[in-house]
């Protein structure tokens, strides 16, 4: 059984076909990289998989279950987590509060209007454990407004990890990072165990190629090349549309 199966997925905005007959099959534990030039429909594909936009046709299966019609807010409860290319965090709160919100999202306690949030079970403990995995536990109480861009990227990842996902979708986790920060993030990602399947969109080939086992190349909403690292890099079409020259 595959972790993620996408069958003949299509989506158009008016006359613009942003996703055309995309098929994707990601095995459990796999590290998949999705590449493609700007506007190839990579983030749209993520938005379709997470349900933030509805496909025109086609189906999506998560570990064998058809989730095509499942509302996007239910999908995290089924083991799907994502990070955003444009950092989407809660800027007025502390780092630990951000992670706590991620934990709370999957807990029935999110409807509790009475108990103090800080006394809510082991929310803080589990939040700190997630921050430990990205190396931010020591500044957990810091307001998000006082953190660096690289730290925010890691908070994004910590929030996704806190939800204990089976499938993790990473949308350009290295975008806008300095070399040092990139190494920090890479370390976090490499440390994620194999029971988490990961799909990553990334432009930065140095780090991305090291990460990925299989690569899918999108171009104008279509999958044009798919295979392991060597196959895709050597494919003439990859050079033509993406790597250049």
């Amino acid at each position, binding site marked *: 059984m595959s972790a993620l199966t996408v069958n003949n997925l299509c989506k158009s905005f008016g006359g613009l076909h942003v996703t055309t007959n995309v098929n994707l099959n990601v095995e459990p534990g796999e590290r998949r990289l999705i590449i493609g030039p700007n506007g190839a429909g990579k983030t749209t594909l993520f938005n379709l998989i997470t349900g933030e936009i509805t496909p025109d046709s086609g189906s999506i299966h998560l570990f064998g279950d058809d989730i095509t019609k499942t509302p996007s*807010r239910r999908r995290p*409860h089924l083991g799907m987590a*994502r990070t955003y290319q444009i950092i*989407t965090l*809660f800027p*007025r709160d502390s780092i630990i509060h951000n992670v706590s919100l991620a934990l709370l*999202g999957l807990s029935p306690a999110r409807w*509790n209007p009475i108990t103090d949030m*800080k006394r809510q079970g082991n929310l803080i403990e589990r939040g700190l454990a997630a921050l430990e995995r990205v190396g931010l536990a020591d500044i957990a109480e810091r307001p998000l407004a006082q953190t660096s861009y690289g730290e925010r990227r890691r908070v994004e990842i910590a929030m996704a990890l806190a*939800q204990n996902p089976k499938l993790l979708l990473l949308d350009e986790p290295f975008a806008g990072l300095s070399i040092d920060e990139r190494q920090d993030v890479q370390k976090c990602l490499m440390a994620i165990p194999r029971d988490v399947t990961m799909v990553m969109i990334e432009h930065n080939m140095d780090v991305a190629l090291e990460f990925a086992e299989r690569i899918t190349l999108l171009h104008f909403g279509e999958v044009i090349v798919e295979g392991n690292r060597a196959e895709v890099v050597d494919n003439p079409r990859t050079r033509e549309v993406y790597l250049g020259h």
Partner: protein
Amino acid sequence: MSARLIALGIVFVALLTLPYWMFGVYYVNVASQILFYAIFALGLNVLVGYGGLVSLGHAGLFGISAYATGYMLQLGYGHPTAILVALIMGLASMVIYAVLSLRSTGIGFIMITLALGEILWGLAYRWISVTGGDNGINVPSRPTLLGSSMSNATTFYYTTLLVFLISVGLMWVFVRSPFGAALRGTRDQPRRMNALGYHVWAIRFWACMFSGLLTAVSGILFVYYTQFISPQTLSLTSSAEVLLMVISGGPGTLLGPFVGAGLVVVVKNVVSAFIERWNFLLGAIFVAIVILMPEGLVPGTARLWRSLWRKRAHAVTPPAAKTEASS
């Protein structure tokens, strides 16, 4: 932190002993007004401050509870029945408000709530057989609580104070709770909240119901206070006034609505006796707040207090201890 506790303690003691040191019955009544308007503003603050949903139709909900109380009393029912029906009517109207207006946020939400408020105002004005139209409804008596009639200004004040303190307590608990955190999350990043597994619409809906409950309670206190209700109470001006209370006091703060309500009620009732153009004064005060303390009076004062304190600390501590003092 301790300065905040001391300030809160002083306010609390002042409120508890108010009828004993206030100049006269008139001013005790003004204090009652401040308190029930503060409950109204607390209710609106749930949506404006914590939910990021600005409603311009809350006077309609406030008024419908007031009308329901008056109408039930007019039909000859007792106070408990009238109050219960008023609460149910207020909450039922909030359900309709929420279902219609939560289809959008931002400007759309403002416009739909405004339209709903205007519809209720129109109903109050034209549905004469129920509302009495322009003449409104008179409420002949106030209830009796524990053998003490609320027609006495002091008894009414203490009843209002009790309800106010319960409301603030509820807000305090709510804000710190997971649901409160979820509501603030939907204000700041609704898309992210959805992706984290939250039902954004349902969170906003229940926040509306909490807001509706406080609004209905304040509407009932209002109608017992004035012993009269007319369409004027449901007008857009009333909705705007309570919104200004929230914004001037500090949206998303526990005590901002109380301070905002105090400001508006005092200028309207007390200062207006000395200054004929009190509306002008109120407008000038709001402009001043927006320019000097755009975050509202409560957070603005806290900010000024902190910077003042920090300056003093810097002046007396040697350079080596500076960083510690400012952190």
